[in-house]
């Protein structure tokens, strides 16, 4: 499949920090990608660079096969409304939508009006006077109604209540189904967006930790619940991501799928298999990576500390 977004050995360094470190990433066209990671991992920097709002210190960026920086051939096909987006001073929501209609060739004004009603965006309140959730709704509406070929949502749920978040997920999926395009969503609410995304990119401390299709990723780990000796036997030499003991019963999350023989052994030894949620898996993998980094840290740095 064609790539919508390509980052080739991209780094972004600031005076005192490195936000992205030699990242290479290829995201396919017409799919919903989840960009996950902890605060400060580099998600927003990555999206800013991909949308030409920021630029890399090193490396190359291609959107739909073109370099986006100052490139009006590709920029109208990109939409990135930030988490704390600034709008024209004193603007009402309708002003922001009118401006977006001028900028995006595929803008759907009817959809924007419908979403504004559904999200209950106030018509006569200036955006700067709106609640955080209402401001987020304005950004979400621009993101969906723009129908940009490559759309980025940076933690779009900030301030949105559960009903509004569900509305966002539902409307995004509906519109995506009718008008396939490339969507990248960064989020901390991993399990909430798990059903939306096809591909997961986990970023940690400026590096790509993993990039896999969701289904493949979920098959990578299992949680075994049962007697300690039985669980240990089935787990074998697999890497343990998480281990909790509750008396004689243990709950162990291990990396690696079970084969047929092991699945039969589960019943014989009365061990239960619990599917690992995407959120749990990402959290465990991120924690594991941190541990690995700490244990492989240069001893001289350790002494210097």
């Amino acid at each position: 499949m064609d790539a919508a977004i390509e980052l080739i050995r991209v780094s972004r360094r600031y005076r005192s920090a490195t936000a992205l470190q030699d990242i290479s990433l290829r995201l396919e066209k017409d799919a919903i990608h989840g960009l996950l990671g902890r605060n400060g991992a580099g998600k927003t920097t990555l999206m800013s660079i991909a949308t030409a709002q920021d630029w890399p210190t090193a490396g190359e960026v291609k959107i739909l096969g073109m370099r986006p920086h100052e490139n009006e051939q590709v920029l109208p096909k990109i939409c990135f409304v930030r988490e704390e987006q600034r709008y024209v001073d004193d603007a009402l929501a309708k002003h922001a939508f009118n401006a977006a209609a001028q900028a995006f060739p595929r803008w759907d004004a009817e959809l924007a009006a419908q979403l504004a009603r559904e999200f209950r965006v106030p018509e006569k309140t200036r955006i700067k006077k709106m609640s955080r959730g209402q401001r987020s709704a304005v950004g979400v509406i621009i993101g969906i109604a723009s129908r940009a070929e490559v759309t980025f949502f940076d933690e779009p749920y900030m301030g949105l209540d559960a009903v509004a978040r569900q509305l966002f997920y539902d409307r995004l999926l509906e519109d995506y189904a009718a008008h396939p395009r490339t969507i990248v969503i960064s989020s901390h609410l991993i399990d909430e967006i798990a059903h939306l995304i096809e591909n997961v990119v986990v970023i940690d401390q400026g590096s790509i930790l993993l990039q896999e299709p969701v289904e493949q990723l979920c098959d990578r780990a299992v949680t075994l619940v049962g007697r300690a000796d039985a669980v240990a036997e089935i787990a074998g030499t697999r890497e343990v991501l998480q281990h909790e003991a509750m008396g004689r019963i243990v709950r162990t999350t291990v990396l690696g799928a079970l084969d047929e023989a092991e699945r039969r052994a589960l019943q014989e030894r009365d061990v239960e298999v619990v599917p690992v949620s995407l959120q749990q898996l990402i959290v465990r993998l991120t924690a594991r990576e941190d541990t690995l980094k700490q244990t492989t840290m240069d001893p001289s740095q350790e002494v210097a500390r």
Partner: protein
Amino acid sequence: MSNVAVHSMAVPAAREQEAPRSSFARVPSAFKLQFTVPSQMIWVPLSVFLLSWAVAIGIGLWLRHVSGDGPTINTGASQATIWCLAFIAAYSASHTFPFSMALSYSRRVFVLGAFLAFATVSAGFGALFSIAILLERATGGFWAESYTFDIPAVTQNAGVLGAGILAGAVCLWAMMFGFFWSILYRRVSLAMLWIIALGLVALLAVTIMVVAQNQWWPHVGDWLAVQSSYSFAGWVLLLTLVLTAVNYLVIRRAVPTA
């Protein structure tokens, strides 16, 4: 609804072959972006224009009332609109620029749209300036010999039209100047902003000292004496074009969140 279900519904759209679009195709949209909120670029400056004029007329009438006949009164109230528009241009850099990035305008298109919008507003100001001169002349400075726009220094060489053109040119320069400082603040740290500001002041001071030390003031005076409002407007517009290019160089690496 699961992603699998939805994705199976997704029918890949036929990608029509798109002809390459002009790099400047969205300049008209970037121009309109500046007028997204009509109060910002039209109604607020117009209100300032009328209110500052009204205040100046009021003060003129009061002075004439308390002091009787006397010399002609020239006020500086015409500058109020220019300062107002300079601040609005600074707002454009601080607020409209980040929004323009969300709308995926290139920085070049944004600056061109802003320049054209500022030029349009400045032309409007210049036209109002000329109309105001005619009104002041027709009423004898509102029956108090009090003039806000019909200032001899502006009108004596080139008349009403030249004064309007000069006012428009100065207004455009002031807007790009306000835009410059705001976008520079976005680009560099506060300390660097002050270093640049003080550096420019120092450069100006050195220029004045060089002129004074070499006793060039008479030449400067001669040069000024032969200028008309038209030629002044030309110099100001030339300076504005340079400033616009500088603005683009500054905004080229400005990040909307900074």
